[in-house]
């Protein structure tokens, strides 16, 4: 009896190490609870609805359905790692944890396990160097791209120069919030502006001193790397001290409706960088409506459709679907392994014609991932909030980052990481 039990347990364990079915398994590390849930929910809903639409409309990718396994991280790094450990044995093709802290922890683990990570516009910026970070992808842009594009926009507003100006960075005092500092420091040397660093502790509900510093220092611009309640409080405080909202520019994680709505009319004119166009007038949205929402299968409460973070979740899922398709094409197989998925991500090409076919006409930038460049194209546009209509709209075209500065920083950081970890580079 004991032998039989052991055999049964062993069989169950072995069974869990291989895909239970022929589905493409994608773990969705989400956070629907805790202080950051208002951001985690729309993102997870966007991913889920898009994947369900692909399953309902196309029967999956290449005839193989996608099996989304949701695991709650609570935006907590330890729980994120637990989610990774508990799902990787189920044939997980890729991870996208929506947390810089979790991404940092997963980089060495996933690389060793031959499972790719897609940290879309977050995570470790130098992972854009594909030669060093073989399994990590952060396209369509990195924090450093975002910082550079924001500075470019400030320069445009100042007639092309920031010489003698003062730029303040209000940031979440975490690995995420500290990411743009190096780039902003380098850019300050190049463009002659003074950089003022103003950290805000988690969760950021009380920022009076920070904004008194802003009042005292009188920066010409403020940029923000915030998340969760920090964004709402910062925007309210900025409005309270009458800081001009059009000179307050957030990163793409400080750019959702959640961030501006609590401040009401005071948030009018606030700007942020965007990686995709706001709104719902796209084919993919119509397909989600038809195949998912109208069928009564909307994710969560179904009340997030059309928000900025929902669209970003959709975009993330669309990249994954297209990467699976690319992997299938490269390897000539419908069923793919995580290693094949990595190849799919590394060879992902989506031009505007393909985006249109996918139902994302003029939605976002062209993607051309290579072995060396996992972070490109590094484009971003500036969006602005209209409090009266409660809508975001793009006020610039998608523009590129200062590649001279950003690429040099990426190379330096990636080289240091490669030396520390004895990585010789995998692009021959």
């Amino acid at each position, binding site marked *: 009896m004991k032998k039989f039990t052991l055999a049964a347990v062993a069989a169950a364990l072995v069974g869990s190490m291989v895909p239970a079915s022929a589905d493409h398994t994608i773990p969705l590390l989400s956070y*629907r*609870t805790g202080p950051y849930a*208002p951001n985690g*929910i729309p993102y997870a809903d966007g991913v889920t609805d898009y994947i369900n639409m692909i399953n309902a409309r196309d029967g999956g990718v290449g005839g193989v359905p996608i099996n989304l396994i949701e695991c709650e991280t609570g935006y907590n790094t330890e729980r994120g790692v637990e989610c990774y450990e508990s799902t990787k044995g189920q044939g997980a093709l890729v991870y996208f944890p929506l947390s810089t802290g979790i991404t940092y922890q997963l980089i060495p683990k996933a690389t060793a396990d031959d499972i790719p990570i897609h940290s879309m516009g977050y995570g470790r910026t130098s992972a854009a160097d594909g030669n060093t970070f073989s399994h990590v992808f952060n396209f369509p842009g990195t924090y450093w791209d975002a910082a550079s594009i924001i500075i470019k926009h400030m320069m445009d507003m100042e007639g092309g120069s920031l010489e003698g100006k003062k730029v303040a960075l209000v940031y979440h005092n975490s690995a995420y919030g500290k990411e743009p500092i190096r780039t902003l420091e380098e850019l300050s040397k190049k463009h002659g502006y003074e950089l003022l660093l103003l950290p805000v502790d988690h969760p950021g*509900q*009380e920022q009076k*001193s920070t904004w008194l510093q802003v009042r005292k220092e009188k920066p010409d611009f403020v940029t923000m790397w915030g998340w969760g309640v920090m964004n709402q409080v910062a925007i309210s405080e900025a409005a309270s001290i009458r800081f001009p909202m059009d000179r307050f520019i957030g990163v793409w994680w400080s750019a959702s409706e959640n961030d501006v709505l*609590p401040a*009401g009319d005071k948030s009018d004119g606030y700007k942020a960088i965007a990686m995709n166009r706001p709104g719902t007038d796209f084919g993919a949205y119509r397909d989600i409506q038809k195949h998912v929402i109208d069928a009564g299968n909307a994710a969560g409460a179904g009340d997030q459709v059309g928000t900025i973070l929902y669209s970003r979740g959709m975009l993330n899922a669309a990249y994954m679907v297209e990467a699976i398709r690319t992997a299938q094409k490269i390897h000539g197989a419908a069923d793919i392994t995580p290693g094949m998925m990595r190849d799919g991500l590394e060879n992902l090409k989506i031009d505007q014609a393909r985006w249109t076919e996918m139902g994302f006409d003029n939605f976002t930038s062209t993607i051309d991932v290579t072995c060396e460049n996992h972070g490109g194209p590094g484009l971003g546009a500036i969006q602005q909030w209209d409090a009266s209509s409660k809508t975001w709209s793009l006020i610039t075209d998608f523009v590129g980052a200062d590649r001279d500065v950003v690429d040099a920083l990426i190379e330096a950081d990636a080289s240091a990481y490669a030396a520390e970890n004895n990585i010789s580079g995998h692009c021959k």
Partner: protein
Amino acid sequence: MFFLDPFFYEILISGLLAGVMYALVALGFVLIFKASGIFNFAQGVLALFAALTLVGFQTGQIPFAHLLSLFGLHATHWGAGFPTIVALLFSLGVMVLLAWLIVQIVLKPLVNQEGIILFMATIGLAYVLEGVGDLMWGANVKELNIGLPEGPSEIILDATDMFIDKLEISAAIVAIVLVVSLTLFSQYTKMGRALRAVADDHQAALSVGISLETIWWIVWSVSGLVALVAGVMWGAKSGVQFSLSLIALKALPVLMLGGFTSIPGAIVGGLIIGVGEKLFEFYIGPLIGGATENWFAYMLALLFLLFRPQGLFGEKIIERV
């Protein structure tokens, strides 16, 4: 010199007003601890739950709409919602009902248990209540507007060039009214005397016919009222969202400093913490990398504990063996 800096007085006033906001949260802890010896870990979540309920009533949201959709009911709102004053009264009613449920389900079975058991029960209560709040009202960020004035006060700005938020001035006035009312209630009403009797000696109070169960219900209800006020003030500032429960972290150093059993202690403690952390962050923070407010509040409280372990106004407890 600090005193010559034109920002010094603005920081001082901002610190005092922020301190009032901390004290509002700390008051809820004090009320329950004073009457029952329970350190209520769920106080921050109570504030969140109260604010969520208020917004729900104000906006006409159907509670548990997401769950009801599983049974084919897809509506999320029943109408335009109640006027603010009605919504406030209904929310208070919900908090009173919640207090009764907490006493009946959580506390009553634990009568005569160690304080640590009751504390652990409130930890569980915090998580349960957070989950129930999520299921009832959803986790999205909600705008809370009860008509309180917001933005910098023009009169103060014109006269002094200081940006003092009208919302924080309102919070200070509300806190003063609340403290005076609680003090009057505690000193001059029959119920207040009963509460103090229970606080002084449970056994003696029981022996003269005071019902512990009723007292606990009243205390948790009053604490629910304080949570509602704190939730409204903090929610109006940053929107109602689940990080609101973390305001409890701001109350802990206030309690350590002011003492766990003193209502004036919560107020004075809040003011000291508010002013201390703001001045430190503004003048010293930039020299040491900033983001000092969270840890400095605890450091300040610990420094006080070195000299007065019971806090500024706490009762000195000497146990003889």
